[in-house]
Each structure stands twice: as C-alpha cells, then as structure tokens.
C-alpha cells in the first residue's frame, strides 16, 4: 500500500527547534546575567523565562538563555527568539524591544493560528529582561 505523506504537527523549523532547542538555560546556578524576564502563567498553559547578557559598549544582546513550560510551539518559539537576538553579533536592545511576534513566527515557518500567542509570550519575556537590564543600569548611574 502506498503510504500517504504526512506533515508533522508544526513546520519543519518548529520541529527542529522543539527537538533540539538552542540556548536552554538548564541550570542558572553559575550563570551571570544582566537582565531577566518572565511572561505567561501556568493557567494559560505557557510560562517563559528569558535571561540576557548585554554588551555595555555596543548595547547589543551578547547572550540569551531561556526556559519554557509549554507546548511544542512555545518551546520552539523561545528557542527561535533566543537565536534571532544573538545572531549576527547580537541584536541592538532597541531593535529587540520592538521585535514583533510576527517576525518570530515567520522565521519558524509559520504557527497554527491558535498558537500565535506562544510567540507573543516569548517576546514579552524578552522585553521584561531588557527592561530589567535598563532599570539596573539606571540605578547604577
């Protein structure tokens, strides 16, 4: 019998990031970060935590780590987000603050409509992390 070709639940990129997530902070014990942010709650089904390191001179994100409680799309969204803000020498903070969830979804090769909020949450956690960093900077001054 000829087997019908099946698609995975999500896009190929989502699958790759879900199965081999990039930049997970498995253990934060010895991780020195400049900013930390959380978004979501377990009741809505997703919680995301994002940690960032910032290059003070260039104001670019040097490192971005994360942990996510959530479905496959949530895990892949945060993984993709962490990759996007650290690639090409790091994303400037200003640009990262205005990063649109749609851009994450686009890079993931799309998400089901019901899962769009996963990309929103990741972005929200990143924003919090950046604001946390900026607040700390202000206090220093």
């Amino acid at each position, binding site marked *: 019998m000829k087997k019908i070709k099946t698609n995975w*639940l*999500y896009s190929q990129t989502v699958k790759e990031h*879900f*199965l081999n*997530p990039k930049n*997970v902070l*498995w*253990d934060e014990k010895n991780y020195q970060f400049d900013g930390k942010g*959380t978004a*979501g709650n*377990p*009741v809505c*089904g*997703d*919680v*995301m*935590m994002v940690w960032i390191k910032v290059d003070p001179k260039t104001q670019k994100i040097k490192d971005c780590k994360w*942990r*996510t*409680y*959530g*479905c*496959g*799309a*949530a*895990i892949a969204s945060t993984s993709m987000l962490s990759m996007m803000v650290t690639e090409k020498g790091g994303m400037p903070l200003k640009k990262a603050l205005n990063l649109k969830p749609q851009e994450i979804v686009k890079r993931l090769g799309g998400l*089901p409509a*019901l*899962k769009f909020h996963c990309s929103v949450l990741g972005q929200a956690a990143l924003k919090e992390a950046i604001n946390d960093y900026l607040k700390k900077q202000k206090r220093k001054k």
Partner: protein
Amino acid sequence: MKKNIYLDYAATTYIDSEVLQKMKPYLTSAYGNASSLYSLGREAKAAIEKARDDIAKILGVLPSKIIFTGSGTESDNLAIFGIAQAYRDYGNHVIISKIEHKAVLESAKKLEKQGFKVTYLNVDSQGSVKLAEFKKALSKKTILVSIMYANNEIGTIQTIKEISWIIKRFRKNNLLPAFHTDACQAAGALSLKIKDLGVDLLTLNGSKIYGPKGSGCLYVNKDYKIEPLIVGGSQEMGLRAGTENTALIVGFSEALKLAEKLRKKESQRLKNLRDYFIKKVLKIIPNARLNGHPQKRLPNNINLSFAGIEGESLVLKLDQYGISASTGSACTSTDLTPSHVLLALGMSEELASASLRLTLGRKTTEEDLDYVLKILPKIVEELRKMSAIRL
C-alpha cells in the same frame, strides 16, 4: 529500526483481521440494498438481522430495539435528543455527569439552549459520581439521566447498577426518568448485560473494539419511544433513516462478539500490565501521579500527570521514539481548553495540562511497556529541566 508502539487504544483500534474477512463480502459481491426485495437485497437484510440478534444476545435483550447508527457519538445524540424530544411534555430536566464524553456533554448543552434544564453532576477526586448528590438532583421533571459506564480519559468505572437502583426506586411504576449509559469504552472490558446494569438505553460503537469506524448502535428498552435524528426512510424501525451499511454493521457485531469472547482473559492480562506499569512509573519518576481510581478503572487505562511539564510536548517527544500516546493537555494545536474530565476531578489547570494517557490493547506486551519505562523518565526529566516552572 524505529519502534512502533501504539498506546492509544482508547482513541481507536485497528480492525481485527477475522472481523475484516467477515466484512469483505458485503463490500464486494453482496452489495445489495437491504430494503430490496430480490435475493441480493434479502442477503444484506439477513446479515443485518443476524448482527442485530448477535448483539442482542450479548446484551441479553430482545433484538427489536437495537438501532444501528454511524458512531458512538451518533448513538449518544440519538439517546439524548431522542428521549428529550419524545418526552418533553412530561418534563424538562436532564441529569448528566461532568465527565461525560463530549457527545453527551454537547448534546446536553444544546438541550439547554432549547429550554431544558440540565444538572451536571460533580464527581469525586477519583472520578466517581457522588450518589447522594445524584439522589438530590432527581425531580419529578427529570426525564433522562445519562451517565457513562467507564470514562474514556481516566478509565473510572461508575457504579451503574447502583445508579439504576436509585432511579428505579425514585420512579416507582413510572417510566421516567429513562437511564442511558455510554458503554463505548466498557465494551470488551466489562459486562454488557442489560439486566445486571439496569439501564434503559445503552450506546456502543465499533471503533474501540477492533471493529470498523463509523459503526455503532443504541439499545433502547422497548417501553420507550424515541424521536429519530435522521428521517427519510423506514430503515431501523424508522428510527435511523438511510441505506444500511451492511459491511460496517456486520463488522461491528463480529467485533463485539470477539471482544466478548476474549473479555475475561484479555481484561486480566491488561490489568496485570496496567498495574505493573503504574507501580514502576510512580516509583521511577518523581512527582508523578495517577489520575482516576486506582482499582475501579478500565483494565487498559493509565492516566498520569507529571507536574511542571506540558502534555503536548510530552506526546510529541514520545512520538519521536515511536510511542503513540495522548494527552488531556490544554495546549494541543486544535484546542486550548484543558480536559474537562481532569478539571472535574478538582485538579489545577496546570496539573491537568501535564497529563498523559496510555491505553493498552491486544498487541501491547510487557516488552513495549518496559521500553516506555526506559524512554519516558528521560523525556520527563529533560522537559522539566527545560521548564520555566521549578518544582
């Protein structure tokens, strides 16, 4: 080679090869319309009536009111709307449990929109209907009670006999309320004798018992009339119009016969496997819990929660290892609401989203379960380490 371990028998089963063989003639040579007068038609008619007799024997009833339908869902709908519409002049109250299959739940909700009053009975933390609460809910206006025999998600078996006793004592010599049970998950595992259960209507289907999908039946006690859902022909005593699908009806009855024949032995085998797995998994994986009742549960049902992780990711990871399982997760790509059954047990949304259902079947072996016991702890640990929620 990639493993292929199917542990979602409560979702559906393959068709048993013996059953398939018995269906085949009715898909090819014996294709007649059962309403036709010539021999090809009569041949189909005879096969359908034999199937009806065979099922009646298993239920221990007369064959006259076994109505073949297109699914368990259709049978549930027919029971609920059929009784509600036939007896709406006698009362407008219906009682169901909070953990019914959506086929019953959504039917009841639709009745509410039509002006009926519905009581949704609570269950205790293990999924059993509270009998005292049920007694209090009965009123002179109650025309129908629908409580499932065994739950599809957590496997909890209800005390149908006791519920029917309560109903019988309440209605004395009256006909109402009628008592319907959805027995789709119970078939092949529990007794289906109507006399023992004391129900007036009972739903069965083929796709959970190694029979064909798209087949089912509703038993209705002869004292009750029901309004059909589908009209346009006199088939099935005028209660379900449409040319009978002889092959599916034959397949369904053959599957039920086989399930009944294997019931005792297979149930014991599955129960042993189930308890073996549950004992081990709770020992190996920290912060794991069993959902449902430890003993009063279907022999093939395992439903677990792993705090701190989300069911969909767990199922997708298991799939990578060739293990097919399901979840009561809040976060599947098609539905964002957590399982109504797990929430009715009083579980938090978080824990309800962290659930995994494994349902065993005829091809499940101890070896399969040992493989899952090897893979599952690794996945749970990885997802927990990756989780933003720390236990």
